[in-house]
């Protein structure tokens, strides 16, 4: 019992009570397999407690400020005044998508729209998905994200109720991307939201997914998201996670990817805002000859804090992973990059590369960059590197000597710095939107 953490005890008690209330209202569901996982998960959360700074993985990220707010319980129905036209600004102009809208974690069918209709595809909410694809969900749900050792994943799992469920049967290629739009509406109260997404791409299927997060209102929001992604042999999946929260928002998100043989997965994680953000992205290569790309960009100012933790877990031989994370940090903001490449004993002929580059725009800006390589196989090619610097003075002068103003020159150079991460976005319309957002954010 001495393992039980007493930090942030009030919120913890409240969450445990919430869980009890949830169980009371579950009726018939309480006997099924998924609910058994929930019970395991809440027990695990009870034991682990919230992450604290003394844990190695949370050394630079302090969640304490999050817990001082009085969050509304997780299962209150989301009150929203949002209309379709209010969503315009969150959409990608000119891009036809399958739109799934979640407000405070709850699926909003009215605001959502599905354009790809096929027997071989399911794009919708978790709760809907369970009606026709319960077997798929039971097969994959919580099989990848580690709720036994990671307390926030445990918490999410315990409360997992809604989120996106995407299922592609063998060989389907979906040309219209799926856009999972998450809005935290804290206009009435401070809210705590636990989206849970599951994406299952069967053999040879192909899809692109946009998962973005926005927050509204003057109160605080705390989003604790978990996305599990399964790539069957030869499946191809591109995922773009964009976090565009306001400065009242806290975001913790875990993405757990399982890749089977010959599959391809590429992720681009973009952090524009939020008070405290923590992204965990883990991919496990469970088959040979997989290909995996991690791209990331964080642009921080004020007192923002963004922490990106990634893990490329090479369990099998002949896999390729490549990672490129870039950060632009201004004012008193703090960035954390912790990227780990794990090459296990059997993973011969691994190719794994990683790099992290940062530009600090102010003297008070901070970056903690920690690339880690753990190699237990002998026939591998791995490299990693991290750079931190300021804007290049020679380049600045060259631009200014051609009549380009200081601000504009800065924007040009920072856009250039972010260019290779931007180029990883394969959806043209989305890339344009992100470029514009970047330029807008670079204007002082």
């Amino acid at each position: 019992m001495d393992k039980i953490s007493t930090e942030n005890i009030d919120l913890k008690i409240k969450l445990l009570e919430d869980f009890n209330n949830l169980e009371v209202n579950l009726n018939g569901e309480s006997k099924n397999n998924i609910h058994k996982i929930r019970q395991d998960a809440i027990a695990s959360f009870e034991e682990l407690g919230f992450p604290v700074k003394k844990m190695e993985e949370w050394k630079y990220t302090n969640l304490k400020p999050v817990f001082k707010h009085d969050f509304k319980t997780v299962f209150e129905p989301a009150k929203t005044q949002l209309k379709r036209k209010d969503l315009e600004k969150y959409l990608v102009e000119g891009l036809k998508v399958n739109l799934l809208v979640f407000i405070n974690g709850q699926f909003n069918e009215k605001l959502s729209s599905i354009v790809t209709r096929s027997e071989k595809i399911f794009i919708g909410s978790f709760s809907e998905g369970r009606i026709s694809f319960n077997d798929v969900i039971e097969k994959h749900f919580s099989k990848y994200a580690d709720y036994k050792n990671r307390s926030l994943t445990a918490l999410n799992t315990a409360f997992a109720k809604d989120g996106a469920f995407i299922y592609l049967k063998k060989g389907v290629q979906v040309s219209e991307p799926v856009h999972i739009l998450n809005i935290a509406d804290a206009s009435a109260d401070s809210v705590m939201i636990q989206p849970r997404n599951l994406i299952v791409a069967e053999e040879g299927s192909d899809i692109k997914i946009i998962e973005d997060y926005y927050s509204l209102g003057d109160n605080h929001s705390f989003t604790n998201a978990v996305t599990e992604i399964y790539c069957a042999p030869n499946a191809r999946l591109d995922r773009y996670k964009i976090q565009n929260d306001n400065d009242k928002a806290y975001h913790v998100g875990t993405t757990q990817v399982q890749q089977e043989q010959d599959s391809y997965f590429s992720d681009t994680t973009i952090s524009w805002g939020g008070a405290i953000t923590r992204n965990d992205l883990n991919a496990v290569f469970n088959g040979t000859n997989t290909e995996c790309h991690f791209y990331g960009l964080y642009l921080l100012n004020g007192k923002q804090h963004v922490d990106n933790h990634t893990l490329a877990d090479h369990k099998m031989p002949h896999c390729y992973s490549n990672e490129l994370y870039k950060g632009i940090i201004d004012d008193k903001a703090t960035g954390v990059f912790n990227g780990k490449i794990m090459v296990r004993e059997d993973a011969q002929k691994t190719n794994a590369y990683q790099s992290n580059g940062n530009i600090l725009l102010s003297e008070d800006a901070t970056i903690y960059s920690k690339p880690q390589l753990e190699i237990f196989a002998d026939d591998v090619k791995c490299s990693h590197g991290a750079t931190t610097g300021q804007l290049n003075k020679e380049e600045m002068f060259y631009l200014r000597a051609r009549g380009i103003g200081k601000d504009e020159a800065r924007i040009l150079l920072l856009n250039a710095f972010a260019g290779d991460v931007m180029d990883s976005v394969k959806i043209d319309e989305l890339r344009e939107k992100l470029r514009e957002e970047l330029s807008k954010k670079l204007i002082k």
Partner: protein
Amino acid sequence: MLEIKNLKAKVETDEGGKDILKGLNLEVKAGEVHAIMGPNGSGKSTLASVITGREGYEVQSGEVLFEGNDLLELSPEDRARAGIFLAFQYPVEIPGVSNTNFLKTAINEIRKSRGEEVMSSVDFLKMIKEKAKFVEIEPEMLSRYVNVGFSGGEKKRNEIFQLAMLNPKLSILDETDSGLDIDALRIVANGVNKLRTKDNAFIVITHYQRLLNYIVPDYVHVMFQGKIVKSGGKELALHLEEFGYDKIDEIKEEAAV
């Protein structure tokens, strides 16, 4: 157009600074070409840096007037917008910024500062096509990142291409001829000659008479230890080429001080 009076400047160093320009005088009028020669380290590039406003140099006394206005109080971009252009001795590479995007931004920033309309994409492309011919630059190079992977000669040519695009009043060419092969030298020099008008002016910094066979200067100045110690017509360059700096009386005198 440009008047420099008794200019004294030092470069900021860790040891607190080093005097480089030690009382320099120069006047350049519209329509003129001035060549500045002088041994390594005499301060030619420093002069170019001070005129264009590079950080790290401190003007201690003297004046630099451009069309009658104090240049030294302007930012580098405002000097460029006023019509000053430096073809760099060592052009920098800027990964991630394409030549075209860079030039378009520069042209439009200059236009905006003058209260003019931004240039349409069509006009811009037409201009690129026309000016690229000037310095015989491959249009393919323009879609590449600024100077990245360019050979030494290509970088210099790109400087003159930018000059042609921005059409400045006063151009300073800092050793644009170094690193150019014989053909490129001719192409670049011809480009410059075509850009000469009665309204603009050029300061050509060079070590070699050869360039001045193509770009014929109205005046040749010899710079030594931070001052212009001798001025003359184009024949001075020939004289220098033949006898070297150490045969110049003024240099002998300065060196003896």
